[in-house]
């Protein structure tokens, strides 16, 4: 009789475990590789200091009170920024928290951070797609340690469930969001932070006045952000 009770107890526990496990999905991003961009590198030496969570970022969220999602970006952010800036600048020096930037003869120091990570699944958006939004903040310091730019980068990726499974589609959406961030930084980072100008000043070169760039410095990154926000809202 006690054997039967034990069996029933174990059966119930196993069923509960299976049910709970069945309500969650875990996504782990494989190492992100961005293609070599077709651009001319900016002639500057920059320091890149990434926060600790760029090496092991995990986002957990309960969707509609029933599904639990865990998205492990791992070191994808660190890989993205290291590769991207390696392509974008003549020279990149990776710095840890303990390193002193003054010892590396830098034109600028860049400190990226993740401000927000959001996603939606087809049940929420009533579409066939998974979507991921990532908002980074890029802080750029000049050679004197003064902040020259504090720029929000809002990126968006979307992937459909049809051809791939749910976790794979979400993984793809996250990769596309990171590529979107990379594309935006390639297009706008120098306009927003004027890093090539800082480098030219330090070399004693004169930079031609660029009125178009000057006006965009203030307005364009924010305009991009709000435009992306509107897109994100539409998709939802």
């Amino acid at each position, binding site marked *: 009789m006690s054997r039967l009770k034990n069996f029933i107890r174990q059966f119930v526990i196993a069923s509960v475990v299976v049910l709970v496990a069945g309500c969650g999905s875990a996504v782990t991003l494989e190492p992100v590789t961005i293609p070599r961009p*077709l651009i001319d590198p900016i002639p500057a030496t920059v320091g890149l200091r990434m926060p600790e969570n760029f090496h092991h970022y995990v986002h957990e969220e309960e969707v509609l009170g029933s599904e639990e999602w865990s998205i492990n970006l791992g070191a994808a952010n660190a890989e993205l920024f290291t590769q991207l800036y390696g392509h974008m600048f003549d020279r990149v020096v990776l710095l840890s928290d303990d390193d002193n930037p003054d010892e590396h003869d830098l034109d600028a120091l860049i400190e990226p951070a993740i401000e927000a990570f959001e996603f939606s699944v087809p049940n929420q958006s009533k579409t066939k797609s998974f979507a991921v939004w990532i908002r980074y903040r890029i802080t750029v310091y000049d050679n004197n340690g003064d902040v020259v730019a504090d720029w929000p980068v809002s990126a968006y990726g979307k992937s459909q469930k049809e051809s791939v499974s749910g976790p794979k589609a979400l993984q793809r959406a996250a990769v596309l969001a990171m590529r979107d961030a990379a594309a935006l930084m390639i297009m706008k980072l120098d306009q927003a932070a004027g890093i090539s100008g800082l480098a030219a000043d330090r070399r004693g070169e004169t930079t031609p006045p660029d009125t178009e760039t000057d006006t965009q410095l203030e307005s364009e990154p924010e305009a991009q952000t709000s435009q992306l926000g509107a*897109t994100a809202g539409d*998709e939802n």
Partner: protein
Amino acid sequence: MTRINWLHVSTILLVAGATSACVNSRVVDSRQASTGINEGEGIVVMAKSYHLGNETEEDYIQCVENSLSRGRAGLRVIPHRDFVDSLFPWFEPRTAPTETKHLPQLMEHPGVKELLAKEQIRYIVWLDGDTERVAGGGSLSCAAGPTGGGCFGFAWWQNDADYEASVWDLDELESAGTVTTDVSGTSFLPALVVPIPLIARTQSKACKALATTLRDFIDPLDDSA
């Protein structure tokens, strides 16, 4: 007394059903410039950006790619993901040109013109649209017991596949025209013990119809199809 021949009944039901899972299609092309493709030249099939609200399915793009490259009259189709990677970041959803007037600016980026020339990419085909369920109804219930199980009822649904393909000529930096396809298909699921799905392959039909017309549009002089 006539005996019911179940084999005959089933065959009649299947044939009737197959003919009733109907698909209506319409393909229209609109030409703005003359086209043609030389030996060795290739094309790329891409979805318009989802930043613009486009929902074209990845498997639909792959279907069009495969259909265009198949057969004796097949075109050289460069897989869209390889194309996007090789021209990173200029064909990302955020950065891809949305109108032909942006093409000269695109060609000014370092390496873009050279890569397109090296790969001999003559046309970009931009796909816009998707397949949606627009109507449905009926009811179907299934039950199982110790002696067996079965289903009873009838369900139906209608899918619409609307796609537009815009053809850009990268030699002339202009739009060559568009091909649109509008396919509507109704599927049925009657069940008398066993459900018999009579599925209308709406998206597949839209893919084949678009690819056939697109191939003739791009290479009108080729009559080997």
